[in-house]
């Protein structure tokens, strides 16, 4: 995994097809510096804990966190799996419902004026505030987490997809029209491919937000998931386990982000090349 940093980009992400196995072309700095940064931070953390004699319940040494992670790896894995499921389902639901809504909003002035203000109003409501209500409606099972993950992931999908569809070059639409293309052909052969880079950008934002949504749901009420594990560990003053859950969450976020990047690369033949930097 060469890319360790989670990057958000405005606009289409460039595909990186560097020759990874050509040693002369390996970017050593790119390979070495991110782990080095991690090592420096962890070392500083360790020195601070030992030097300032910080209590374990406040900030455990890195080694204790690692120990907790190794000891309870089965728990982290099973709870992580729950959170991952909530994230993925919420994200996929955001795509399945968000893209059609974006198509409707982008193609119809009436629907745009009817629903877009509502969507923006919805976005400005803090999702944490909605979580208790959704919990009342949907119970403490996976449904409520999924709903919150969906809510937070929905907005970037809709907004970016709509922007992509509307950014279709007017002349390309005229070309299709000059050939008497059907609305269906115009959508599939022109608008959708033109919007695809935007949809990928929205998806990358949405998937990381979905993780946050799932954890919010777990915080407000649940009996499983990494958010739940983190809460119960802190309530038992098991700070090393709480930190281990936190790292598991970070890894989960990165993995789901990279999964979207992977899909983007698989779709690279369909995406317009963009110059990097």
């Amino acid at each position, binding site marked *: 995994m060469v890319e360790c940093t989670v990057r958000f980009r405005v606009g289409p992400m460039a595909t990186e097809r560097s020759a990874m196995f050509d040693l002369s072309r390996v970017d050593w700095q790119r390979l070495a510096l991110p782990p080095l940064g991690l090592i420096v931070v962890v070392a500083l953390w360790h020195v601070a804990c030992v030097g300032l004699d910080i209590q374990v319940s406040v900030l455990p040494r890195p080694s204790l966190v690692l120990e907790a992670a190794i000891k309870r790896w089965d728990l982290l894995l099973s709870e992580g799996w729950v959170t991952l499921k909530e994230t993925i389902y919420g994200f996929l639901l955001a795509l399945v419902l968000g893209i059609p809504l974006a198509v409707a909003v982008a193609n119809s002035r009436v629907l745009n004026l009817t629903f877009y203000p509502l969507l923006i109003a919805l976005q400005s409501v803090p999702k944490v505030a909605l979580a208790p209500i959704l919990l009342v409606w949907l119970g403490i099972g996976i449904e409520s987490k999924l709903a919150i993950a969906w809510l937070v992931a929905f907005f970037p999908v809709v907004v970016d997809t709509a922007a992509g569809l509307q950014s279709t*070059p007017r*002349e*390309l639409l*005229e*070309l*299709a*029209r*000059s*050939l*008497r*293309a059907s609305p269906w*052909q115009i959508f599939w*052969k*022109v608008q959708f*491919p*033109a919007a*695809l880079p935007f949809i990928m950008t929205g998806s990358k934002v949405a998937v990381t937000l979905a993780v946050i949504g799932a954890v919010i749901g777990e915080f407000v009420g649940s009996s499983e998931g990494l958010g739940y594990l983190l809460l119960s560990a802190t309530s038992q003053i098991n700070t090393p386990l709480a930190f281990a859950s936190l790292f598991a969450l970070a890894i989960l976020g990165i993995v789901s982000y990279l999964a979207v990047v992977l899909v983007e690369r698989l779709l690279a*033949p*369909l*995406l*317009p*090349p963009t110059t990097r930097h």
Partner: protein
Amino acid sequence: MKPFGVLDDVRKVFERSELGRGAREPLVAIESISCTFGEGELVSLLGPSGCGKTTLLRIIAGLMPKSAGSVRIRGEEVVEPHADFGFVFQTPNLMPWRSVIDNVLFPLEIIGRLDAAGRKRAHDLLEIVGLGDFHASRPHQLSGGMQQRVSLCRALVHQPTLILMDEPFGALDELTRMEMNDLLLDIRVRTRATVVFVTHSIAEAVYLSDRVLVFSRRPGRIVEDITVDLPYPRSAATRYTARFSELDQRASRALGVIKDVPPPVAHGASDDGPHGGVHGALQGGTHGH
């Protein structure tokens, strides 16, 4: 030549709603245009920017509704686009996510005629424009001139009987533009299609056309209908003939570019020799003397 297209008293007024915010009153883009063109003719619409020539082309293509008058192609009133027309835009207008050949095949896909013969024709066209080896490339890998050639192939692949070209070479550099002009003449000989060609380059209009319709400033009217009797095949040498200069001057005069120079004497015009008019834009000050 039997009449192929007949335009009768075509008028276009953009209403305020079409013009967007800030428009105080409707804009008369085309006052009244009547003309005919024959089958297989190449007719240029020549005029200054904003004179309505592109608007007229879009109306002929059925891409834009007209306010009044009639446009008949082969006796049929044009009210919407016709799949039998090919349109070449000012920009190459290629789909960046498609390869060159898939861009060329796009019209066949849309009209449901994507068969082996069509594919072969697409490859042949790329061969003719000198891009045979680039069929698998992506548009961004090509230069602007190459992209416009792909665009030309795309407009021809479904064998349209009428090709509408909207300043297709306007964005190209001078040398590429001259190459493209020769290419277009070559393609015309092969396809025998009727072409309506919008340009603001006097030299390009004269070099390519059978007829040049010179437009006034907005609101557009046709101020002169020049029959270009230069013999075929035309080549670079054609640009330096006396007749070319005469026609070039006549078009310039109709455009109001040259005012104080007396009309050329038939045999004296050859003194002009290679002149700035080849460059095309409306900077005709050097014409004559």
